[in-house]
Structure formats: C-alpha cells, structure tokens
C-alpha cells in the first residue's frame, strides 16, 4: 500500500512537472512558430535561441503589481483563475502515458488513475473549466470581461455537445469509457483514426473551440474586447489564465493522440522483445504525437482567420451535431452488419 501510494505520488509529481514545462515552452514555441510562419526570427534575446524566455516571462509575472479593481468582486476575482488552473491540471490524471514499467519484480502503471469512466471524467472537469472563465469575467465587473466571459461560456458549452457525440462512436467500437482500455485496444498500428476519421475531425474542431484557440478565439479577440474575460487581470492571476490555456492545449493534444492516434502504440512494437523498452519507446512516441498536435494548434492559429460569432454558433450547432449523430448511426450500422454477417 505504501509502495503503491509512493508510486502514485511520484507519477503525479512527474506528470505535473512535465505538463508545466511543456506549457511553459509552448509559449516560446508559439512565438517561434508564428515567427517562422511569418518569416521573422522570434524571441532570441534571453538565452540561446530565446530558450530562457519562458523563465523570464514567468519570473516577470511574479514581480508585476497585482491589481484588484475596486469595483470587482474580490472573492470571485481570485476564484476565477484558480478554477481555470486547477481544472487544467486535473485532466491529466486519467491519461495513460505508457503501459507498465517492471522493476524489482513490480509492475508500475504509467497512468495516475485508471478509472472506468475516464472520458466522462475528462468531460466533467472540462465543464468545470467553463466556471473559471465565467466567474472571472463576472467578478471583474467590466463590460469587456463580461462579454468575453459570455461568449466563452456559450461557445464552450455549444461545442461540448458535439464533442460528447463524437466520442460515442469510439466508445461503441471499444466497449469501454476507460482511456487506458481505449488506448490498449489500438495495439500496433490499429489506430482509431482509420475507423473514425469523421469523429476525429469533429473532436479536433471541438477541441480548438474548447481551448478558445483561433479560429475560435472570440472570447479574447483583441480587436473587439481588449482582452476578453481577462481584461482586468494582472500579475500571476493573468499568468494562471494564460498558463491554463497552454496546459489545456497540451491535454487536448494528449487526449486526441490517445483516442485517435493510438497513444503510446507504435508500429512493429511486437518485434521488440523487452517489455520495458517497449513502454519507454511508447512514452516517447506518445510525446512525439502530442508535440505534433501542439504544433498543429499553433499552425492553425497563424493560418486561419477568426470566425464571426454567428458563423461559430452555426458551425457548432447546425453542422457538427447532425454530423456527429450521423457518424453514430453509420458506426452502429457497420458494426451491426459486421457482427451479424461476418462473425
């Protein structure tokens, strides 16, 4: 019991550190990628290639003056960014980072909590994340913040329906809601993307909307709303909001690669004899997929312009929801034919 508890604490600390470091360096990567796509150099003053830039930014956040506007609701104003950050950090608990590592005769699972409702847990935590933005925007008592928060929450809840529907076809194929089970069934090259390309497209679009990323970044579109829901925020509270956005990108990349791109599975993994080697390579493969998706998020941001709000709502409700329902019906029909006539 103590050993197992120790394993879990160790794993939690590692996952924490990794997600924070990746989120930190995503901020640098974003600026470097945007510079690359726009034929600029990007930050290169702090450290070689600007590698110390995220550290400098983080330190600066700590030393900046923390303003709580006199009209703001103080408790809600502090609660908003805290909820955003906590929910962003909580989702990583159910992601299977690898299979098992065996040392000194014990098998250590590389997943913090293999609960049987993994996907529902992710949805539940993501839904609480809406409160973070809504409470922050309401508590600021600023018109821009309130409008940004309204836009953010109604956009996030709209896309959550299509997101939930797009996962159902995966759950039907797998017969389980546990992320560990879903990933282990995509052994080798048997990835879900080959069976559910439409589901992936819907899920990917919704993930962009849930993270408030371009082309769905209306909650904070600077041309209309100054900074959106975090207009009044400064210092580390602003830092928590911005940081949670990057952690969310990391987590959604991880979930996308786990559910559709096989997670830690890679081709020809059965030909490697040592199971420990397989799981270590698996972790690296998983992170390679995650980093590709993080790059994809940035690539899209600097390529596609922002939607108008009515277009955004139209896409979410009128196209993605019927498409996801059709995907469920088609998946069901194909599975029925397969199990009735070819088994």
């Amino acid at each position, binding site marked *: 019991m103590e*050993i*197992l508890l120790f394993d*879990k*604490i160790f*794993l*939690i600390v590692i996952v*924490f550190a990794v997600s924070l470091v990746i989120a930190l360096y995503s901020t640098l990567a974003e600026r470097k990628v945007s510079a690359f796509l726009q034929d600029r150099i990007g930050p290169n003053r702090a450290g070689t290639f600007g590698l110390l830039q995220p550290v400098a930014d983080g330190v600066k956040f*700590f*030393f*900046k*003056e*923390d303003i*709580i*506007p*006199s*009209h703001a609701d103080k408790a809600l104003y502090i609660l908003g960014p805290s909820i955003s*950050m*906590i929910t962003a*950090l*909580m989702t*990583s608990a159910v992601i299977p980072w690898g299979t098992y590592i065996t040392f000194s005769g*014990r098998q250590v699972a590389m997943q*913090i*909590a*293999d*609960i049987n409702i993994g996907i*529902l847990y992710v949805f539940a935590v993501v839904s609480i994340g809406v409160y973070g933005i809504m409470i922050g925007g*309401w508590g*600021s*008592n*600023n*018109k821009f913040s*309130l409008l940004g928060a*309204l836009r953010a929450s109604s956009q996030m*809840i709209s896309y*959550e*329906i299509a997101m*939930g*529907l797009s996962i*159902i076809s995966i759950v*039907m*194929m797998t*017969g*389980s*809601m546990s992320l560990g089970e879903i990933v282990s069934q995509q052994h080798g090259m048997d990835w879900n993307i080959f069976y559910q390309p439409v589901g992936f497209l819907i899920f990917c679009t919704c993930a962009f909307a849930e993270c408030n990323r371009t082309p769905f970044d209306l909650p904070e579109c600077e041309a209309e709303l*100054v900074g959106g829901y975090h*207009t009044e925020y400064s210092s*580390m509270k602003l*830092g928590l909001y911005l940081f949670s956005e990057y952690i969310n990108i990391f987590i959604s990349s991880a979930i996308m690669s786990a559910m559709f791109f096989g997670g830690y599975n890679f081709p020809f993994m059965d030909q490697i004899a040592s199971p420990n080697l397989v799981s270590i390579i698996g972790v690296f493969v998983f992170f390679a997929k995650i980093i590709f998706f993080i790059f994809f998020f940035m690539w899209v941001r600097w390529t596609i312009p922002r939607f108008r709000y009515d277009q955004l*709502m139209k896409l979410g*409700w009128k196209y993605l*929801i*019927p498409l996801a*329902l059709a995907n*469920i019906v088609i998946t*069901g*029909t194909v599975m*029925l034919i397969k*199990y*009735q006539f070819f088994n």
Partner: protein
Amino acid sequence: MNETSEMLNPYFPIGMQFMVALGFVMISLLTSWFLNPKINTKNKLDVFESGIPYVGNARMQFSIKYFLVATLFVLFDVEVIFFYPWAVNFKDFAREMGINGFLKMLLFMSTLFIGFIYVIKKKALDWE
C-alpha cells in the same frame, strides 16, 4: 496484478492530484502577492474602459441568446449522456440482440433529432 493494487481506490490518486493542483495555485498566487509592489491609486483601481471614464454598471442586460444556448445545452447534454451506457454495451448488443438494440436507440435518437429540428425551426440558434 497483486493484492496491494486492489486496496487503493482508483479515485484516490485523483484526490491527491487535486491537492497538488490546489497547492500549486495557492503557492503561486501567494508568492506573487508577497513579491509584487502595491502602489494603489484611485485611477489605477478604476474599471478599465479603453481609457475614458467608465459609464454605469458592467452587469447590464445581455442578449437572451446566451441564456437560450445555455438552456439548450443542459437539455442536449443530458440526452448525450444517455447515449454513453448504451454505447459501452453496444458491442454485446450487436452480437447477441442483433438489430433490436440498435432500433431502440434510433428511436431515442430520432426524438432528440426532432427536438433539434424544432429548435432550428424556431430560429433559436440564429444569431443574425
């Protein structure tokens, strides 16, 4: 695996992760609170409204559409949740019950879809 793994509730690590996340947020907020300067003036603490003096309360009336979307979300999300238990068992349904298990779900899905068509026909989702 072994008997120790059965002793640990799978939700327990999630609780631990919550404590770590809470600790991280509290420590970072407190650190920045102790480190940063506090020079407050009235103008600085005023509501930001693009540099001009602010007008009225921010919590004014907003478009009913946002409320409508929130209500529709509650309705549809509950219906989506009902899909999950069926989807988890669908493999067994397809194997043993044949078309029966699928047709009943199609019935439920069509009621959802009729409601969806109604919402669209009532122009509840038109933002123009």
